[in-house]
């Protein structure tokens, strides 16, 4: 299958890419790794008149900690494999390491990019819920400079974000959770390589007494966009993480989920999966907090 015909340009800089976007307006698409865009173009679900290749732009795949700002900055063109292999990410944001390992397959992880996946905004994407649980921010660069958007308000609809036609994602800012924080990312698949039935990202900050001082909870494949389960976060915050609290929070998670029925299950089933994954993720986070080694990621 061939994509519909298009004009092709290689961007030589971010400014050049934005200039090209402005000139071609809504007919243009940015191509980085192409692991989602190329299949969508082959299916002709997307038919750009102009493809702007940013895949070779230098300096947009760095991962580094900015200790003053308390964040890890990740370039938009970092591949999933680069994020997964990054020592900084493993030490500061292990939730991201866990998610990076379960995206697609080795072929996709080697070429697909963090920025590309976020811009595509697939409802079943992994980075959306992870960014929301970690309260990450998206750097959107346009003709008048950079605006920084919270991951919680970045997604508008399925495959739709707040990015304007002449903006591109240039990087992510991810706050480093406090010491004593622990999380888990769990994604349920029917079989290897399938889209998620549902996924849940949990990041808990706990004090010495085992009380939750801060909680990040977000769901993937549970609606048209990633969903930050704010009511569940509030149910956990300030509470000891005990059976009753988690039960109440799991109720809030299932209320927040708004999954569509499809071949992967009914809406009710997927909502129940969200609740179950949340329970499991909280349990994993607590065990990790106690220093246990627990394998998260795929649930099959």
């Amino acid at each position, binding site marked *: 299958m*061939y994509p519909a*015909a298009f004009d092709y340009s290689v961007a030589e800089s971010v400014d050049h890419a934005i200039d090209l976007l402005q000139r071609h307006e809504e007919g243009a698409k940015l191509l980085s790794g192409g692991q989602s865009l190329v299949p969508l173009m082959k299916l002709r679900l997307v038919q750009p008149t102009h*493809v702007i290749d940013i895949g070779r732009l230098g300096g947009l795949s760095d991962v580094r900690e900015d200790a003053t700002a308390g964040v890890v900055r990740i370039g938009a063109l970092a591949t999933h494999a680069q994020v997964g292999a990054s020592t900084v990410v493993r030490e500061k944001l292990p939730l991201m390491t866990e998610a990076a390992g379960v995206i697609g397959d080795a*072929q996709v992880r*080697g070429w697909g990019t963090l920025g590309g996946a976020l811009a595509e905004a697939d409802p079943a994407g992994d980075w959306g819920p992870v960014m929301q649980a970690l309260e990450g921010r998206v750097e959107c660069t346009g003709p008048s400079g950079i605006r920084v958007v919270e991951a919680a308000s970045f997604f508008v609809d399925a495959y739709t974000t707040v990015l304007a036609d002449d903006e591109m994602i240039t990087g992510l800012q991810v706050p480093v959770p406090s010491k004593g924080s622990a999380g888990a990312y769990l994604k349920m698949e029917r079989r290897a390589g399938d889209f998620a039935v549902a996924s849940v990202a949990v990041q808990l900050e706990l004090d010495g007494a085992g009380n939750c001082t801060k909680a990040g909870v977000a769901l993937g494949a549970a609606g048209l966009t990633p969903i930050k389960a704010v009511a569940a976060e509030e149910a956990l915050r300030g509470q000891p993480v005990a059976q009753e609290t988690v039960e109440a929070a799991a109720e809030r998670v299932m209320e927040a989920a708004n999954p569509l029925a499809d071949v992967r299950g009914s809406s009710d089933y997927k909502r129940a999966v969200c609740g179950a994954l949340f329970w499991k993720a909280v349990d994993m986070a607590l065990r990790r907090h106690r220093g246990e080694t627990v394998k998260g990621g795929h649930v099959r």
Partner: protein
Amino acid sequence: MSDKAKIRITINGVVHEREAPPRMLLVDYIRDVVGLKGTRYGCDTSNCGSCTIVMDGRSAKSCTFLAVQADGREVTTIEGLAEGSALNPLQAAFQEAHALQCGFCTSGMVMSAHALLAHNPAPSVEEIREGIIGNLCRCTGYVPVIEAVQAAARRLDPKGGTP
């Protein structure tokens, strides 16, 4: 629109510079423009992995790339592994372990394993399973494939090998 682009790709050490429309897929460039038919065209939907090649050291599904994305890059296809008539250790291990039956997935499977071993010379069984998740095989049930990759790993790195 869709004027031809000049695309220069080094494939198995040989530079190929041809003109092709930007919408041409890499798998078509490799098979039909260059004429290397070892790379299989399978599902054409990024699922089966039969079209897997190694590009700049990373495995890649060549049906999921535009040929223009490979411009200036180095590609290794299944034809690039053997030296003359001598199979490379991975290919030999596939033969010895009966890691194929119909053979359709084999070139992609071998290229995924090739990329895996380049990054991880002594993978565990779990790591091999994870490493070939993007390659479907409908004949073997994967067990002989995993055994072949283990055997090749031991042969390539006698000190390593899988537990």
